[in-house]
C-alpha cells in the first residue's frame, strides 16, 4: 500500500462548512469576549478596533445569524443525504462508542495493550460534533433571547433574559475552552498528528492514516487489503488478538 494513496473523507460541502464555522467561531469569540470581560483593558482595545460597542455588537449579531443559517443548512443537507442517498448516520452515538471510550481509557492506563479500533468517526469526534450541535443550539437560542428581549418578555417570564445572558456567556466560554484544549490538541498537537491534520481542509486522508485511525472503516472499504494486512501481522498462536474481529453494531 503506497503512502500516497488517498481516500476522500470529507465532501466539498463538509469542508466548506468547517471553514465557515471556524471563521464564524473566531469572529464570535473576538466580538463576544470583550462583552464578557468588559472591565479588562484588552476588551476596551478590541472595542476600539471595531470603532465602538454598537459596531462590535453588529458584527457579533451578523456572525451569530450566519451561524444559525449554517446550522440549519447543515441539518437540511444531512437530512437530504440520509433520505435521498440513504447515507449512514455515521455521527449517531452507538453502544460501541461507550465501549470504545472505556477501552481507550483502559489503554491509557495500560490495562489494554492496543487502542480501541474505531469506525468512521471515533467517540471523541462524535463527542465534539454533538457538543458543537448542542452548544450551538444554546448559543443561538440564548443569543436570540438577548437580541429580542422585548418579544420574549411579551410571552414568557422576563427572568429568561438574564438567564439567557448567563447561559450565553458561560456556554461561549466553555465552547472556547473546549476548542483551544481538546480540538487544538486532537487536530494539531497530538504526537501522531503534529503539526496539522489537514484532512478537513483537503478532504483527503491517506490510506495509511485511515487504517491506523479508523481501522474498522478501512476494513469495510478495503476488505481484501485488511485481511492481507492482518495475515502479515498475525498474532502468534496463543496470544489473543488486540480486538475480536466482531463487526461493530450498526455497520
Amino acid at each position: 500500500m503506497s503512502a500516497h494513496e488517498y481516500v476522500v473523507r470529507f465532501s466539498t460541502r463538509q469542508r466548506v462548512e468547517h471553514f465557515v464555522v471556524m471563521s464564524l467561531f473566531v469572529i464570535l469569540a473576538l466580538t463576544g469576549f470583550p462583552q464578557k470581560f468588559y472591565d479588562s483593558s484588552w476588551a476596551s482595545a478590541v472595542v476600539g478596533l471595531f470603532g465602538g460597542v454598537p459596531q462590535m455588537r453588529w458584527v457579533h449579531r451578523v456572525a451569530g445569524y450566519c451561524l444559525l443559517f449554517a446550522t440549519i443548512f447543515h441539518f437540511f443537507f444531512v437530512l437530504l443525504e440520509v433520505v435521498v442517498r440513504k447515507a449512514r448516520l455515521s455521527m449517531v452515538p452507538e453502544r460501541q462508542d461507550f465501549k470504545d471510550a472505556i477501552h481507550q481509557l483502559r489503554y491509557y492506563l495500560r490495562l489494554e495493550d492496543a487502542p480501541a479500533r474505531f469506525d468512521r468517526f471515533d467517540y471523541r469526534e462524535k463527542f465534539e460534533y454533538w457538543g458543537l450541535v448542542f452548544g450551538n443550539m444554546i448559543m443561538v437560542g440564548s443569543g436570540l433571547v438577548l437580541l429580542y428581549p422585548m418579544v420574549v418578555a411579551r410571552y414568557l417570564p422576563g427572568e429568561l433574559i438574564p438567564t439567557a445572558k448567563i447561559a450565553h456567556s458561560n456556554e461561549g466560554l466553555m465552547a472556547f475552552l473546549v476548542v483551544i484544549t481538546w480540538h487544538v490538541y486532537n487536530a494539531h498537537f497530538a504526537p501522531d498528528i503534529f503539526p496539522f491534520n489537514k484532512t478537513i481542509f483537503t478532504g483527503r486522508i491517506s490510506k495509511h492514516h485511515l487504517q491506523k485511525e479508523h481501522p474498522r472503516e478501512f476494513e469495510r472499504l478495503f476488505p481484501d487489503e485488511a485481511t492481507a494486512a492482518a495475515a502479515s501481522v498475525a498474532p502468534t498462536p496463543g496470544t489473543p488478538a488486540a480486538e475480536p474481529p466482531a463487526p461493530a453494531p450498526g455497520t
Partner: protein
Amino acid sequence: MSLLQHRPWLATGLLAAMFAAPSYGLPEPPKESPAEEAEGCLGCHEDPSIEVAFADGTRRTLQVDRNAFAQSVHFGKVACSECHPGFQEIPHPERRYASEDEFRAGMRQACQTCHFQDYSRYMDGVHHAVAKEGGAAPTCVDCHDAHAVTPPGKPRSRVSDTCSTCHSDVAETYANSVHGRLLAGPRPDDAPVCTDCHRSHDIQDPRSQAFLLRTPETCGGCHSDTERMKPYGLSTKVMSTYLADFHGMTASLAAPHAEGSTRVTAVCVDCHGVHDITKVDEPGSKVMKENLLKTCQQCHPDAAGDFPAAWLSHFEPSLERAPLVYLTRQFYVIFIPFVIGGLVLQILLHFWRVVVNR
C-alpha cells in the same frame, strides 16, 4: 563685629538686603503690607459713586464693600495690586474695555497666577466653552465673588445656592429631591451638592456621553460606600449589580470610546432620574414596580408584559430572587470545570501513553 553690635539697625538693614537681593527679575514686593495697601485703596473705593465706563456705553460701579472684603480669605494676605497690577499708581493707568464682559474676562487672569490648577480646569469646562463662544457663562468671580472670597462649600448648601443664581429651575427640582431634602436636613454632609456630581471647575456637558457613561462611578462614589450608606439602610451592591448587567457592561465598554451625545446605554440617572431623584419607594418613583414598565419604555418603546423583570432590581441572583438565573450560573460553575478538566485529563493520558509507546 563691634560695628554691628553698636549699630543694631545696620544689622537689620543688611539682613533685609540679603533677603531682598535674590529677587532680581521678580516684581518689586509691595512696600506696604496688604492690609495697609487695602486701606489706601478703600479710601476711594468705598465710595459707591466711583464707576468705570465701557465703550458700549454701559457703566459699572467700582465700589468695594469693606465689611465683605474683610471676611475674605484673601484679606490681609493678598494685596490689591496683586490682582490689579499697575494700579498702585495714582492716577491709575487708563484701560479701555469694550464691555463689562470684556472687563470681567480680563479680571479672570488675576486668579490664574495663584490658582493655576483650578484655572486650567476651568479652561476645560463647559462654562469656559460657552464664554468662549460669546455666551453668558460665569468666570471665577461670578461663583467666588471678587472681593468677598470665602470657602465655597461652607456650609455645603452654599454650593447649591451659588449655582442656583443661574440654574434656578434645576435648583428648585434638586431642592425637592431626596438629595436636596437631605441637604436641608440634619445630615447635610451626606448629601451630594451640585459640584459633587458635576465637579466644580472642569464641569462637563451633562448631555455628553463621556459624562453620562461615567455616571455609575459618580453615583457609586457614595452608593458603594458601606459607611456612608449604613444610616439609610441602602444596599451598596447597586453599582456592582448594575455593572454585571447588560446596561452596565455596555457602559463600561463604551465609556473610553464615548463621543458626542448619541445614547449608548441606560445609566443610573436614566431610570432613577437626575435632579428629581426620589427614594425608590416614594410615590412617583420612576423605579417603583408599578412605574417600572413606563421607565423601560423611555428607551424601549415596545417593552410590554414581563419585560421589567429582565432587570433584577440590583439584587444578586439567589434561590429566592431569580432562581433560574442563580441555578443556571451554579450549573456552569460546576459544569465548565468538569468538562474542561475531563478533556484535559484525557489529553494528558493520551499524550503520556503515546510517549510511553515510543
